[in-house]
């Protein structure tokens, strides 16, 4: 089981903070995530910075049971 956490606009717009999904690869995870809410599209996920267990990841990364994946939409300005 993969723990998925959303941050930034993606979270505000989808209304999803965190969920648990089955996936062996990031591609599977992204496909699965898009099925969870009409408000999450592949395009939205493309815009996000991906962190797997705190390290930078990408759409081709492999996943292991127990991983935590963070999707964060770009931010700036303070």
């Amino acid at each position, binding site marked *: 089981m993969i723990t998925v956490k959303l*941050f*930034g*606009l993606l*979270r*505000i717009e989808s209304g999803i*903070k965190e969920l648990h999904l089955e996936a062996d690869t990031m591609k599977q995870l992204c496909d699965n995530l898009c099925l969870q809410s009409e408000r999450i599209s592949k395009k939205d996920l*493309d*815009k*996000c*910075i*991906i*962190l797997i267990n*705190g390290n930078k990841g*990408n*759409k081709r990364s492999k996943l292991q049971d127990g991983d935590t994946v*963070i999707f*964060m*939409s*770009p*931010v*700036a*300005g*303070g």
Partner: protein
Amino acid sequence: MSLKYSGYMGKVMAVDLTTETVSEYPWSDTERELYIGGKIMAARILADHLTGKETAFSEDNWVVISTGPLTGTGAPSSARFNISALSPQTGILASSNCGGSFGLYLKKAGYDALILKGQCRKKRWLEINEEQFIFHDADELWGTKTGECQEKLIELIGKKNFGKLCIGPAGENLVKYASIVSDERSAGRTGLGAVLGWKNLKAITVSGTKMVPVHDKEQTAQWIKKWVSYLQSHPLTGKQLPKLGTAGLVSSMQMHGLLSTRNASAGHFEDFEKVSGETLAEEYNITNKGCATCPIRCARTVKVYDKTVKGPELETLVLLGGNIGNCNLQKILDWNYELDELGMDTISAAGTIAWAMEANEKGLWHNGLSFGSIDTLSSIFDDIAHRRGIGDELAEGTKRLSEKYGGKEFAMHSKGLELSAYEPRRAVGQGLGYAVSNRGGCHLNGGYLVILEGLGLNVDSQTPKAKADFTMLFQDLMEMISASGQCLFTSYAFFPAFLLNKPNGMLVKIVNFAATHVGWAVRLINKFPRICALHLPMFHHTKMFTLAIGMKMDFGHYIEIGERGYNLERMINNRFGITAENDKLPKRLTNVPQDPKHPETKVPLETMKKTYYQARGWDKNGIPKEKTLRRLKIK
């Protein structure tokens, strides 16, 4: 008098508070061309007046309140005004920018700027309109908080549509980091509220109905339309800032190790989600709000004590959150409101508290404060504003307290100004910015390089390569945006949307990689700005000048004026003893790695400083060379 340029009202007024007399201060078209307005104009006026002997609390400390030429022209986010003087916190040049309506109304009354000289002989407030400057006794206002004071001003003036600014109890009691408040917006940093307090001036109101002249009305209106739609379609200025505000950065800072935690002893806060922008938006935010003429509308409104008030900015969330070990968001909303009401800078107040907590835990100063223990904070803030008990000491700020009790190595300030919320050991360019910034430890005046180093782009955040050159470029750019009367946040749309929308894409990887290898190119632009004699498509500011003001402007010219401003400010600071020795950071940030397993996670300040001085045309002591000052027509 006919002016060469539009956008200006053509009058700078010098108000002698001691004699309660007013005269016009000479300011020519050439000066408008060279120094534009806002903080650069203020720096020129103060450079012509200050000798290096004055102190913040003296009659010779002139306060310059200045607008930019774009204020009142309808340009996006252009209702900003600037206040400059000597800072009681740093002893050097202070400048603080505010989005309240005072600046707009100052122009409607027919003035580009005010210079406040001397000191009122008794407690006063000043009413300005198109014809008169009227001094009133302020006994009735003295002691009031900023909200109540502004309510009373509305009653006293008898209408609502006028500009106002005032100080709270903190300014009256000379708290070193007291702010000036206009509407719900603050000129927060550098303690200028205390300067007005010392001058016995509680408030200023200004009203008028004059129109700001615009050079080419039709084309300006079209350009504004185009610009607003660009800002609204941009991922940062059109989405993130309106929907999450600056608070939206908290989570990203956590991911990048930038979230100042427990007096910047760490860059991650375990409970960050409880005090994040997302939580604020989901559980507390009522609506977004903006300064006048702003399509970005980055401010939040929240409920505090059953009132709808302006919510906290990112800085306050972090510095009154993880940086003092607190994860109670409602408390941060309450304190943010209370500090605005008392008229105190939230960044410096929070930074001072964090230092005091660590000093107590280390046994240096027994003050009863410790990380995470927050029950007494509201009353401590009140004590600071009224200089009661331990509040009297805390009112002096981190620098003076650490000089008295020890603990300088973890005193998070530069030149006496408490650092903002970005822990710079994971964004070393931001560290350089804090150290060399003209007003002390400020993220924006420092160049805001963190936008390249994790927040926005992902340029290698530990390498010193190219950071000095980018720092100079960004500082100069922001200097000029501010001088023109616009909000710095308009510059975030400078980063093309495709870079932000594809953070994992190949192009972005190339840009991130290339950025640290193009220092030489940035250096070339910095050295010969005139080679950029063009309007950049994602930077609408320059063409706005040409259309609305009728002033010849291009990107190169724009950053050159910014450079002039930055050097003028530095020149003033040099007169007050600032040299390379003062461009420093506390040892924790330069000598102790944030992550012991990664020795590179500290700020290699001296290496970057050397390159920065070279890029700026300063000598190794951090003094602008004669030829630099002459090239910039400062001398």
